[in-house]
Every structure is written in C-alpha cells, then in structure tokens.
C-alpha cells in the first residue's frame, strides 16, 4: 500500500466510526463466561463406539444411533437407516461406517432416554417386602433367594403359606364344575404394561407353552387405543391400523389425535405432515383442545368429546345428499370386479344382503348373495350389484348393507348431528365437501381421542367406513390399511430359516398347550360358560369376545373379585396400571390382600406406583440395555424391522434382562424349552441372544427365497442387520404404480356380521353391525347421567410431546420443559370461576370427590366447558418420595411427582364400582367420558 493509499484508508476508516451503531457483541471480563452452556461437546463423542438400536421412549420405535464411550452411552441421534428418522432414510446398502457421518432425528423424549437409563433412582437389586403389602418397607435380597422363594413358595412373609410357581403349575381343572375355565396353571397371570415384539413372543412362549397358563400377556393396549384396532379389525380382514399416505395425500382430517405431539411414529408423522403442508395439503384437526397440530392445521374443529361418530355420520349424510359417494366402488361385490371395474385392490360388502330374522348375511352355502339388476346372484359371479335393496327372499326380509347404512345415516339431520357434536352444521358440511373433493387422495384418520370412550369401537368403525365411501383404501395418497409392515422374525415364511412359531413342534420340545378362560375374559364368550347356563345375563363382570388385545384395566378388579377364578400369582412387568389407568387409584386395594392374591412379583426398573404394591421386585434393564424387534405403524410404507440391542454396559450390574429372568426361572423349574437344546436340537437357550439371534436371522434371510441381505454365511447376514440396527426397505420402494407397494388387498366391511350377531355379556343385547353413534353408557347399557349442574366440565387428557406414559417423569430435562401449570381451562370459564393463571385449583368428580389439585393454566386454546390435564405427571411413587430399604430411607426427588394427573378423577362404572367406564366391545378404558367440577383452593 502506498503512503497515499494508507492515508486514505486511515481517513476512510475514521469516517466509518460515525456510522456504527453498536458496541459489538463481546465485552471484556476478568472472568469471561462461556458462550452457551449445554452445547453438545463432540469431543466426548469422537472415537466413540456407534451402536444402532430402537427407541422405546414412546411406542413409535424410531431407530437410534447411539454413541458410547468407555461403556457409557453419551449421545443419542436418529439411526439414519431407519425410516422414522429421515426423509428419505439412507439406502440400506450404505456402508455402516459411512453412515456414522449422518444423523437421523430423535424427539426430545428420545434424546432424554439417556436420563431414564442413568436414572439414579433405578432399582439395583432384587427386593422383598418386609412390611405389609404397599407399606413401603423393603429389604435387598439376592437373585437366588428371590428365585427360590417365588418358585417354591412357603411362609414367605410370616403371614401363612404361599404357593410358589411350582405348586401353581397344575393341570387339574380350577373348577371341575366349570371345565371351560381351564387348569389351575391359569392361576398364574402375567401382566405386562409395555411389552414389544421379540419380547412379547418370548414371554408368550414362556407363559403359554412352557408354563401352561392362558394369562400370558394382559398388556396395556386397552388404556392406549385398543378400540381403534378392534374397530378397524372389524372393518378389514386381518388389518387393524390405518394411516393416511401423507406424502401423496391432498386432504387429511384427523379425529381425536395430535400427530405433531403423539401417535405413531410421532416424529415421522410430524415431518411428513410438514412436507404435506408445504405442498399445499389441507390438514384438519377435530379435537376439543387446540393442540400443537391444530395450531398447524388449516382448520380446527373443537368438537365435544365422544361425538366423533356423529360428526362422521353427518358427513356421510351430506355426501349421500350431494352425490359424493363413490357408488361405483361400493357396487363391486368381489375382488375381481373391483380390480377390473376401476382398478381397486379392495371391495366392500355394501351390496351384501342382511337378513331381518337373524342379522346374518344372506348366503347360499358359503357363497354370499347379492341382487344384480333385481335378480339374486352369487356375489362372486357378478361385476356389479344393486346398492339399494329391500326385498323378501324365501319369506325373509333382506336389505342391502348400503340401504341399511343409508337408513342409519338418515335417522338424523346434519343439524342434529352437529348439535350432538356441539358444532355448527356448516363445519360438518365443509369437511364433507372438502373430503370428497380430492378424488382418492383424502383420508379420515383417527386415534386415541376418538376411541377411549364407551362407544370407542363403534366410533372407530364409523370413522374407518367414512373412507370406504370414497373408495380410497390402498391408493397412493389415500388411506393405508397395511403399510410396509416388517419381515417375519418369528419365521413361518418361505425364506425364513427358523419357524419359531413352531408349527412343526421343533422349537419347543415338551411344549404345553394352555387352555381356558382369561382372567380379563378377552376373546372369551360368556355364552359358552357354565355361569351363563346357570345365571344368564348379566354376567358378574363383562366379557370381551372381540377384545383380542387384552383388557388391562379389568385385571386387578377381576383379581380382587376372584372372577372368573382366583389368581394365585401375578407377575407384572413395566406395568403401572394404578397410575396409568383411568380411576387406577381405585385398583390399589384390589391387590393388597394376600389372602385374595397370595403372591405378587413385579419386574420393573423403578419403584413404580404399581410395583410398590408387590411382594418382590426384580430389577430389570432399561430398553437401551435390552433386545427387541420392534415394528412400525403403517405411516411407514416401506418394510421395516428394527433391532433393539444393548448400546452400552448396563448402568446397574445386578439387574437382568426380562428374558434372562424367565430363562433362569425356567431352568430352575425344569420347564420345557430352556437350557441345552431349549430351542430344539443344537439350539440352546441360556441367554437372551440365543433367542434373538434366531429372530435376527429370520429378518436377515427375509420372507421369500432370494430376499436375503448380503453375506456368505448366516453369521455375516446377521452382522449385516445388527450393524444397521435392523433391516429397512429402501425409500424408493414405497409405491407400486397408483398404489402403495404393500397395500391391503381385501374386503372392507361396512356391515360386520360377527359383531351384529354377538350379544353383550351384561345386557344380552346384540351389538350393532353398522356405523353408529352411541352416547356414553355404563356396563349395563344405561346412559351415564350427565349431572351437568353439579359437574359442569368435561375432562380430557393428552400426551404432551415431551412425555409418554409414566417413565418420562424421571428425566430432569423433560420435567424442566414441563410447565408447572397443568390444569388447562378456558379463559372464559376461568374468569367465571375467579381462577387466574397459576392459581391452585381442585378438580373433582362423582367418583372422586376429593379430586386432584394442581395449578391452573388459563388459556384460549381449549373449548369452553372442557378441562384438560396432560398425562405423565402427578406421580406419588417413582422415587418422588422415599421408601424404606434395608431399614434406611432411600433418596428421592420430589420434582418427579410434580403436577397432577386426570386419571384419579375418572368415573367408575356405576354398576361395577371398581373399574372405570369401558367399551364393551373393544375393551378400551374410557378416558374422556367423565364430568368434573373445578374450584379454586
């Protein structure tokens, strides 16, 4: 720079001084602080071992890419091979080392699972109670002592003799006078809260085929959304979950769910919906609460809880009156006609004929009959059939399913439907119009909020059938009723090397066949019992012939009632029914009396509300220390088999995997199927991997010949899957022409004959085989009294995006972002009651006059007349308070118990008085049918 240039530069720079506005972004300090706290420190992660597993922070089953250093898990990202975590996921052939440079996403809960794994309040050794049940007094014992006492029984607590597992395992009948109840071995019940694929098949094998009890699972789905599955199962053949094909859809109406916060897989739903909305897709949210999803929706419809079926019937009426039904689709009576007529992969039973005398479908032998151009014909033999039929055949009045549906829909006007929903008719009309304006690229989807009602199964069927009326099933952009599904880890498909389902009896030498009635009476018909023959209707407690998923909230009350027989030993796993079920606190007493329930063993990672009532607690592993082969929801269109595997050393060495506990007990009891050749000749079963390596091999070889992953040997193929955290079909294979690739190809039942010809065990009345709206009822079929004067509010609940059921409360990160104010109330209602944001309020109901207390969250984002308390808070155990261990109080953290839960105020069934209201068909517990009062305290 020349001297002149330098001088000009200096002068120019001087002139700049006057142009500046700020003093910069940094200041000097003798003790400068760090830039931000909590920034990730990749130093810890560099050089770490990467293990790919599957999250169980919620049931979404997202793949995780976990970094572990010196045996400690230090960082969680999404597994980039897994379709839940990326759009698109990495091609499966990608080298696993290269894939380490790419991260998928995880949600806040997923990342925080490190904190539930390294939770200092986890149970570290087997415990035995030393005071009365539920007294909170425990002593540490060895595994050997625990196994010995649980197996052999004896005077274990100084309260008299208790039968152990050995004594209970008898194949004599429980009651020779009622042989249908099955053998005494059924007096052992297993009751898992959260149990997943790979594991549940293991415990099913243990309980059902090694031990011999029918009470093999009793898992939690009835407090989740089981009537959604049951309702859809009654709409399809072998399919029980629908999801919109979001990436190709144009219009989606979500009833009773908030896909940006929950539902499955939550983070994939949220991501795909972002793409959907970016493309101009219309998302409509029907929910009394203005959820995160409603905030992103084109329209929010603040419906009254429990009335979704009325909304759908109103839409159907508008569609029928405005010629918006795909009558051509409905007129196809069989698969061939539907495919050849308009390319459909599915067909409905709209043209089938229902007999007036016995509610059955009109048949000739096994052949369904329809009317085609006014003549009776086999449904299989005509290309199209008549939709509006009302005639007489052999002296019996028969009507077509579509005619019956039409009559049902026309029972009320749109205004009347809207009145039930607490909405304007225009809201129903607008959605009916929009839903039918996108050809097949529209879907009506629903989840928990629609079905955890006494009318849950009916609502599920009604909403599912709304889709049939536009013929959108299995089309690209339409309603997906199958999804990519998974490779069959249990074998039985042509490509699988191991048929673990064991049709040929090679995998369980000495297999036992369990039989009899389940303690919760799921899948059992009352009419087939001795009790029915003696007493007729009503049964002592409800029976649930359609509830294939177990009836979780019925187990404890049934144990207390010793109905249909006494339970001598209950083993729970990851189970917190008294916390998680509606009115669950009323089930505490049910298991407290050792005379009624002599032995109660809990397997858990913490001192949960339910495990605190047990005789023994066996400490198990966290899911990051476990195996599993989780599946995903049909949101994912490509085939997905995740592999859960331990990512690091167990946080606490004296804990065991669930499978190991049962292998140990099996070996000690000498049950068939364990130890040398336990899984058949040459296949020992002494540790969990012995089981899982067969499952992974089946996944690796695939379902068809030639479907295998690369690898010269089985070991290499298994490694290929293990390194990638599962097996994943490539993203590009999601579609096949105008359909989704793995589409449902089967019938769609508008009328369900089996349902329509089955009677309720309490009322003796037939169930309804058509879409229907039914108000809230108790188990005797009586409408539940509204009592609006005393209880002016309707209470609902939901999962905030940073919580899932019970376990997330142990994460300081997640609790750190959870507001203190938990009782959500509309601002107008709050003003009327003199409640201000942050005030302490009491919420109480007819079943719980004392109620729950918490801080008010005054908001506009909720329909007036609705109170909402998010789930996952309000623990009273979980180390939110101390218990006594080896004569000393344990450490505790009160923040774990912060807030309150809606469950304690949920209504008890007025007849049974010991369990919440329930859906008699699906077995769902009612979370949204309770009225409450609120007052400032």
């Amino acid at each position, binding site marked *: 720079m020349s001297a002149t240039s330098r001088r000009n530069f200096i002068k120019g720079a001087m002139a*700049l001084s006057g142009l500046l506005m700020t003093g910069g972004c940094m200041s000097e300090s003798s003790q*400068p602080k760090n830039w931000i706290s909590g920034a990730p420190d990749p130093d810890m992660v560099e050089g770490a071992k990467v293990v790919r597993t599957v999250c169980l922070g919620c049931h979404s089953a997202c793949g995780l890419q976990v970094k572990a250093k010196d045996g400690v898990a230090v960082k969680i990202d999404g597994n980039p091979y897994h379709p839940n975590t990326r759009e698109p996921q990495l091609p499966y052939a990608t080298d696993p080392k290269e894939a380490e440079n790419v991260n998928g996403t995880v949600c806040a809960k997923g990342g925080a699972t490190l904190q539930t794994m390294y939770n200092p309040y986890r149970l570290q050794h087997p415990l035995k109670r030393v005071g009365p049940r539920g007294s909170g007094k425990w002593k540490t014992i060895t595994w050997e002592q625990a196994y010995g006492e649980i197996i052999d029984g004896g005077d274990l607590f100084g309260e008299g003799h208790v039968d152990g597992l050995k004594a209970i395992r008898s194949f004599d009948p429980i009651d020779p006078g009622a042989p249908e109840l099955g053998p005494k071995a059924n007096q052992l019940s297993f009751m898992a809260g959260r149990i997943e694929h790979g594991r549940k098949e293991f415990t099913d094998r243990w309980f059902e085929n090694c031990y011999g009890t029918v009470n093999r699972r009793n898992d939690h789905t009835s407090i989740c959304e089981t009537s959604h599955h049951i309702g859809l199962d009654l709409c399809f053949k072998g399919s029980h979950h629908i999801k919109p094909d979001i990436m190709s859809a144009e219009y989606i109406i979500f009833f009773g769910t908030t896909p940006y916060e929950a539902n499955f897989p939550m983070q994939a739903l949220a991501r795909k919906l972002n793409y959907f909305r970016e493309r101009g897709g219309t998302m409509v949210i029907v929910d009394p609460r203005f959820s995160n999803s409603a905030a992103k929706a084109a329209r929010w419809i603040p419906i009254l809880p429990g009335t979704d079926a009325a909304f759908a019937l109103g839409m159907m009426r508008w569609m029928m009156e405005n010629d918006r039904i795909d009558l051509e689709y409905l007129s196809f009576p069989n698969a061939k006609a539907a495919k050849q007529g308009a390319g459909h992969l599915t067909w409905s039973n709209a043209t089938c004929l229902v007999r007036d005398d016995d509610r059955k479908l009109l048949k000739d032998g096994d052949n369904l009959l329809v009317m085609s151009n006014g003549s009776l014909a086999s449904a299989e033999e005509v290309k199209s059939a008549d939709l509006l039929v009302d005639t007489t055949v052999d002296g019996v009045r028969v009507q077509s399913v579509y005619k019956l549906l039409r009559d049902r829909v026309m029972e009320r006007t749109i205004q009347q439907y809207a009145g039930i929903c607490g909405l304007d008719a225009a809201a129903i009309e607008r959605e009916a119009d929009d839903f039918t304006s996108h050809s097949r690229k529209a879907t009506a989807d629903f989840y928990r909020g629609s079905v955890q009602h006494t009318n849950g199964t009916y609502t599920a069927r009604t909403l599912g059938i709304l889709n049939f009326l536009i013929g959108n099933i299995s089309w690209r952009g339409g309603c997906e009723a199958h999804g990519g599904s998974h490779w069959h880890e249990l074998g039985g498909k042509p490509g699988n090397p191991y048929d673990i389902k064991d049709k040929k009896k090679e995998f369980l030498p000495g297999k036992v066949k369990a039989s009899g009635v389940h303690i919760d009476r799921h899948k059992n018909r009352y009419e087939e019992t001795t009790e029915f023959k003696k007493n007729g209707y009503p049964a002592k407690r409800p029976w649930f012939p359609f509830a294939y998923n177990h009836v979780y909230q019925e187990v404890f009350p049934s144990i207390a009632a010793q109905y249909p027989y006494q339970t001598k030993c209950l083993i729970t796993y990851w189970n917190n029914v008294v916390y998680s079920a509606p009115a669950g606190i009323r089930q505490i007493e049910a298991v407290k009396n050792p005379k009624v329930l002599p032995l109660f063993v809990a397997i858990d990672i913490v001192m949960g509300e339910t495990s605190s009532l047990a005789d023994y607690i066996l400490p198990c592993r966290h899911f990051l220390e476990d195996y599993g082969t989780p599946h995903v929801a049909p949101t994912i269109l490509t085939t997905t088999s995740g592999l859960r595997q331990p990512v690091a050393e167990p946080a606490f060495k004296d804990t065991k995997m669930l499978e190991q506990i049962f292998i140990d007990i099996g070996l000690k009891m000498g049950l068939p199927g364990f130890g040398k050749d336990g899984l058949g000749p040459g296949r020992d079963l002494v540790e969990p991997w012995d089981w899982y390596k067969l499952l992974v091999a089946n996944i690796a070889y695939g379902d068809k010949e030639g479907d295998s992953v690369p690898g010269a040997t089985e070991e290499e193929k298994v490694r290929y899957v293990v390194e990638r955290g599962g097996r994943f079909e490539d993203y590009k294979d999601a579609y096949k022409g105008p359909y989704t690739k793995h589409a449902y190809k089967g019938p769609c039942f508008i009328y369900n004959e089996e349902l329509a010809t089955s009677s309720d065990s309490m009322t003796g009345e037939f169930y309804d085989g058509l879409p229907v709206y039914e108000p809230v009822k108790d188990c005797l079929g009586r409408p539940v009294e509204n009592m609006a004067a005393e209880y002016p509010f309707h209470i609902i609940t939901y999962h905030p995006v940073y919580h899932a059921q019970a376990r997330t409360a142990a994460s300081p990160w997640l609790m750190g972002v959870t507001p203190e104010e938990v009782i959500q109330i509309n601002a107008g209602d709050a003003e009327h009651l003199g409640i201000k944001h942050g005030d302490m309020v009491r919420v109480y109901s007819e079943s719980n006059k004392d109620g729950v207390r918490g801080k008010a969250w005054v908001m506009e984002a909720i329909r007036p007349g609705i109170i909402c308390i998010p789930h996952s808070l309000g623990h009273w155990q979980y180390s939110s308070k101390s218990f006594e261990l080896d004569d000393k109080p344990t450490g505790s953290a009160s923040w774990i118990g912060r807030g309150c839960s809606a469950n304690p105020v949920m209504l008890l069934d007025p007849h049974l008085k010991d369990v919440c209201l329930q859906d008699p068909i699906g077995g769902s517990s009612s979370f949204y049918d309770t009225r409450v009062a609120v007052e400032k305290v």
Partner: protein
Amino acid sequence: MKHEIAEAAAMERARARLYTFFSDLLLNPPTAERLDKLFTVAGETAMEMLFPGHPDVETFKQISWRHRFGRRQDQDFLLDYEALFRVPGESYVHPFESVYRQHDDPHAKGGKAALWGREAREVAQLYKDEGLQPREHFDGLPDHLGVELEFVAFLSCKCAAAMECGDQDKAQGFYAKRAAFLAEHLLAWSGKCLTRVGQNASTPFYAALAALLKSFLEDEKYQMLEAANF
C-alpha cells in the same frame, strides 16, 4: 521510527474500524436508524476512500443516494438480511465457520455440517483466552462471521494500543495472534460464505457489501503474506 510506529498503530486502528463496520452490519438487521446513519455523504466518502475504484462502491453510492432522496428500500433490505443470515431456507448462507469447515458444501443433503462444530469451540476458547465474553443479550454462536470479524478488530485494537505504549513485543504478540486467527479461521472459510452471500442476496446492497468485505479480506491475506515474506 516514532512516526512509523504511529502510522502502523493508526493503520491497525483503521483496520479495526473496518472489521467492526462489517461485523456490525452482519450481526444486526438493517433498521431504519442504522440505514440512516450508513447512507450519508460521510458513508459514501468513506467507501470511496477505503475501496478506491472498486465497482461495488458505485453500487453502494447509488443505493445511498436513493435512500437519501426518499426512495428507501428498508423492507427489502430487512427481508434480504433475514433470508441470508437468520431464516434457514433457500437463501440462507449458514454464516458459521464450523458449518463450512466440516463440510465442503453446507447445502449438500445428508452431509454432516453441524453447528457448534470443532471450530466454534476453538474460537470460543480463543475469545475466552483474551478475556472476552458474549454480551448479555447476545445469543449468537462464536463462529458467526460477524463475531470473528469483531475478534480481529479487537486484536487489531490491542496491537495498536501496545504500539502506542511503545510495547513492541506485546504489539508483535497481538499481531501474530491476529495473523494466526485470520489464517486458521476467518480466511479459511469467509471467501466461500461471502461468495454465497453474493449469489443468494436479493438486493444489490448485501451483494455489494459481500463483495467489498471479500475484497478487503483478500487484501488482508495478501498483506499478511507480504509481511511474512518480508
């Protein structure tokens, strides 16, 4: 000799001002008040003196005239600033060193171009070593282009102050630190980022600003090389 030192110190202070000027414009949105101060006769003169003959000075002057004569584009500038530096989207340039240094193309899909990468931690430590901390309400990252420019300005000021006190060793120390920081951090990535600003800017103002800063930094590099050879 004394005169030479004084001139060298003045040069360092001038440098510091120019670094601060650019830092200020990159870290803060173009408010009306800020634009009013910038688009003045003094501003135009300063640009002419600092970047004699640079084609983008003309652009700057034209924008400045229009502003002074009532044809303001405040909203356009604000939107451009937000799109370039704040809102992840099509025009976003990811103005952070660790994004550029860990991945050649920060816009490539599937790459690992993380915020708070190694370079961000390194520069944060360098700032701390010099007794600097982020101001209370500043929530940016340490490897933001504007923050790195401010740090060079700080080192230049320190260097000038040491010279003015006659502490040549200390001045030499700051000079060396500045040179090292430029070589190991700022100059190693700013070129790519500024090229992207030029490409993505929707107003000529930010395109010109990027070009002027780029040319200044290239000049700095050249002078550093010259000094090293000397």
